[in-house]
């Protein structure tokens, strides 16, 4: 039987770098409310922060949206974090290539290590954020594109602390 409380939160905000850590703390409280264990709360908070920074960096109209759902489907408790923003065609192409490469790598940790080696001697940009979500937060990632709007979702199977 599930001990996770189904819950949903949606935030729409103007990109502001300072806001991201504030939102991370807020959603950590939200995850704790949903009775998720401490390690999972930490994983989800990390994923939320990385997704928000990704959205803030890439938004074309200064606005980003994050939706978080804690739900039980078919007896399985899961959390889905979705960030949505509009962006440029160039950024969409970069994201598509990144997801293509990432999805082709079957082992998230090995891919993360590969990116770390690749990025270590590059002066600018990390490109580590999404790979970090897959590896450290142990979440599946998905990219949806509709026109100039991109939606990146991260999904985790969770266990309750009860």
């Amino acid at each position, binding site marked *: 039987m599930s001990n996770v409380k189904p819950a949903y939160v949606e935030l729409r905000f103007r990109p502001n770098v300072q806001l991201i850590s504030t939102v991370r703390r807020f959603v950590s409280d939200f995850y704790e409310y949903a009775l998720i264990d401490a390690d999972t709360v930490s994983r989800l908070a990390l994923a939320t922060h990385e997704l928000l920074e990704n959205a803030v960096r890439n938004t074309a109209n200064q606005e980003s949206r994050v939706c978080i759902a804690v739900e039980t489907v078919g007896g399985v408790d899961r959390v889905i974090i979705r960030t949505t923003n509009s962006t440029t065609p160039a950024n969409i192409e970069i994201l598509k290539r990144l997801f293509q490469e990432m999805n082709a790598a079957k082992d998230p940790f090995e891919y993360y290590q590969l990116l*770390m080696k690749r990025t*270590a001697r590059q002066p600018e940009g990390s490109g580590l954020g999404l790979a*970090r979500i897959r590896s450290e937060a142990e979440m599946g990632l998905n990219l949806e594109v509709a026109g100039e709007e991109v939606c990146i979702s991260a999904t985790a199977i969770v266990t309750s602390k009860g």
Partner: protein
Amino acid sequence: METLAIDPVNIQGFNATPTYDGKTIRLALKGSADLNSKPMLDAMLEKMHPEVLRLAVREVVIDLNGLEFMNSSCFKSFVSWIGKDQDLEPEKQYKLRFLQNARMHWQSRSLNALRCFAVELIVVEV
């Protein structure tokens, strides 16, 4: 005794305090290392590698006990620093000892990734 030529970083929500006791450089991080603090952290870590070599230090201790969070951009700053250490001749390489806060669960995952990246150089202490 020579002194460390690196200034601390003190901004809202993030502090980085480097100290040197004549043998070991210690860097204590507090708060949230994110996009807001990234430029200052980068500037500090850029200076850290040459200072370690100038002072012929064999170990740098990075204290994460007060660090609530580190984003991937700041994490990459550490990856770059470790890359410079890896590029040194083996006899000139130095250890990076990370002091982990077990209550900050993300730290064990991030530090495990760093340790696997440079297993010969990284020590993690809980």
